[in-house]
């Protein structure tokens, strides 16, 4: 006998899941995990297995599964409800065969239709690339000078590079507002020196974004460069000097090529996070700045369009997957060489 009011398919599915997890809900998470593992046949969970399993499960649950969910939502349709997207699986009738797949590639097509997104991606890559180059130009001499400084000073100088990293990122970006604004420090200094005769607009420009990224990510550039330059075999340089090579030439033909791994690692550490940067363009950049991190933020918080925001996130990930994998290879090789 059928009930008078047939509940919707997806509701019934949800109820089933809730019933299944009903017992689990009353257990503390630890016992729940244990019970689950025993059910799965993972008995004698101790020692080695436990050491691997605990962080492994954590990362699977809170790092990998979320990406699957983002991927799923990026293919679903937006709706005005909570949560604001339609389910991918749709129960049209009451049999298992009545499952309808509701896959919607429209969000991705939309990214191509509206030129805003493509321009934002291009602009983010450009801003990140130029900032990385600037950070290299400023960071390399600094790393070089620290690595060649007297051994007694090296640890202190290195600590001085890392110290700003321990203070708040947000407050370091904030510092530049006071410096760059129209009646800020830099304008006042330039006016006083007579370089300019009226304040120049520096805050809320692309220039300010570049400056902010270079400033905040400089320690990430200096650290791998220093690590590389510090362990370099100096006898090569001495040999070059003995053979009559001038210092600048020795630097260009010996030090620079040997420090390539450090340069690559430093550039990756600046470039990858800079592409998706939100705080710096939001505080220092122009109001209409097209940085993809900002676009994603606006799409999510202001437009409340979760599917499009998810599609932007997946697209951003696809853009960054090549440099990320390359960086991981590099890290793997470095740690392999160390052991």
């Amino acid at each position, binding site marked *: 006998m059928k009930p008078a009011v047939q509940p919707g398919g997806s509701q019934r599915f949800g109820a089933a899941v809730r019933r299944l997890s009903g017992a689990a809900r009353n257990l503390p998470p630890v016992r729940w995990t244990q019970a689950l593992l025993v059910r799965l046949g993972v008995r004698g969970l101790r020692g*080695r297995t436990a050491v691997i399993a605990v962080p492994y499960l954590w990362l699977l649950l809170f*790092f990998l599964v*979320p990406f699957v969910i983002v991927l799923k939502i990026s293919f679903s349709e937006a709706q005005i409800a909570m949560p604001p997207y339609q389910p991918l699986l749709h129960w049209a009738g009451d049999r298992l065969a009545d499952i309808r797949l509701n896959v919607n590639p429209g969000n991705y097509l939309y990214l191509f239709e509206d030129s805003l997104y493509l321009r934002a991606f291009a602009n983010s890559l450009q801003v990140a690339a130029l900032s990385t180059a600037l950070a290299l130009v400023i960071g390399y001499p600094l790393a070089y000078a620290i690595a060649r*400084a007297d051994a007694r000073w090296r640890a202190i100088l290195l600590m001085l590079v890392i110290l700003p990293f321990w203070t708040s*990122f*947000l407050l370091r970006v*904030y510092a530049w507002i*006071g410096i760059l604004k129209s009646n800020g420090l830099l304008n006042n200094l330039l006016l006083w020196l007579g370089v300019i005769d009226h304040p120049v607009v520096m805050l809320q420009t692309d220039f300010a974004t570049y400056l902010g990224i270079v400033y905040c990510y400089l320690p990430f550039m200096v650290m791998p460069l220093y690590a590389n330059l510090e362990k370099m075999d100096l006898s090569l340089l001495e040999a070059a000097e003995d053979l009559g090579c001038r210092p600048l030439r020795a630097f260009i033909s010996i030090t620079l090529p040997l420090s390539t791994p450090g340069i690559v690692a430093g550039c990756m550490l600046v470039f990858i996070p800079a592409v998706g940067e939100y705080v710096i363009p939001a505080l220092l950049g122009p109001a209409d700045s097209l940085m993809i991190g900002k676009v994603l933020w606006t799409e999510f918080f202001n437009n409340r369009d979760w599917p499009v925001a*998810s599609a932007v996130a997946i697209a951003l990930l696809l853009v960054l997957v090549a440099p990320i994998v390359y960086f*991981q290879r590099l890290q793997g090789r470095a740690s392999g060489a160390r052991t």
Partner: protein
Amino acid sequence: MKSKTSLARLSFLVFGFAFLYLPILSLVFYSFNKSRLVTVWGGFSTEWYGKLFENEPILDAAWLSLRVAAINATGATILGTLAGLALARFGRFRGRTLFTGMITAPLVMPEVITGLSLLLLFVATEHAFGWPEGRGVSTITIAHMTLTLSYVAVIVQSRLASLDVSLEEAAMDLGARPARVFLLVTLPIISPALISGWLLAFTISLDDLVIASFVSGPGSSTLPMVIFSKVRLGVSPDINALATIMVSLVTVGVVIAGLVTRRSVRVRQRDLEMAAGVH
């Protein structure tokens, strides 16, 4: 010739550190400014510090952030140590490539992606299982732990990789079980790495704006969220005062840590020399 290159190196150092520190020093300097216009000097005053400690939203947010940071750092250190141990000592195991990938990816992943994906997870689990009931301290802590356990794992792994395994082997030869060896031999040796991992996890959590904005709920604003909404409207002198307090605390902490490590290095060196002398 020699002096020319060392002069160049000195100028690199001066320029580099001026770039790194002048903005921070400007924050500190203007926190003692009487004028409300942050960058116009109006005489020395500490009134903004007083104002800061009367600002309820900032104090509440600071307390929330400190709690989240402490729980996060402790959890991330435990999980990160296990992960670092697995990576450094267990050789090849099934799924190692995926594991390594999941450890290193959060280090460079744009924060907007991490934040969005975790929020969507929490929304989905709340919808399906009724957990978490609303978002707040617990969701922010879980999100931060996921991010910062990677940092701890990398630190612990590199410390373990540079560690002589013969001590652990000796303990095992003498009949100690692996868990005992870890607790009595490995853990004390890597404790400096654990402390720096804890502090790093604490700082990252205290500093995070983007991920916290995604996974926090109404009524649970962290300190960076409050600062961000204030700073968006322009400079404000009490934020300068807050920055000065944070910079001083960090500086004192880093200097103490530096002195302690230098001392322990010296002690270890002396021990080694004495051991060599005995032989």
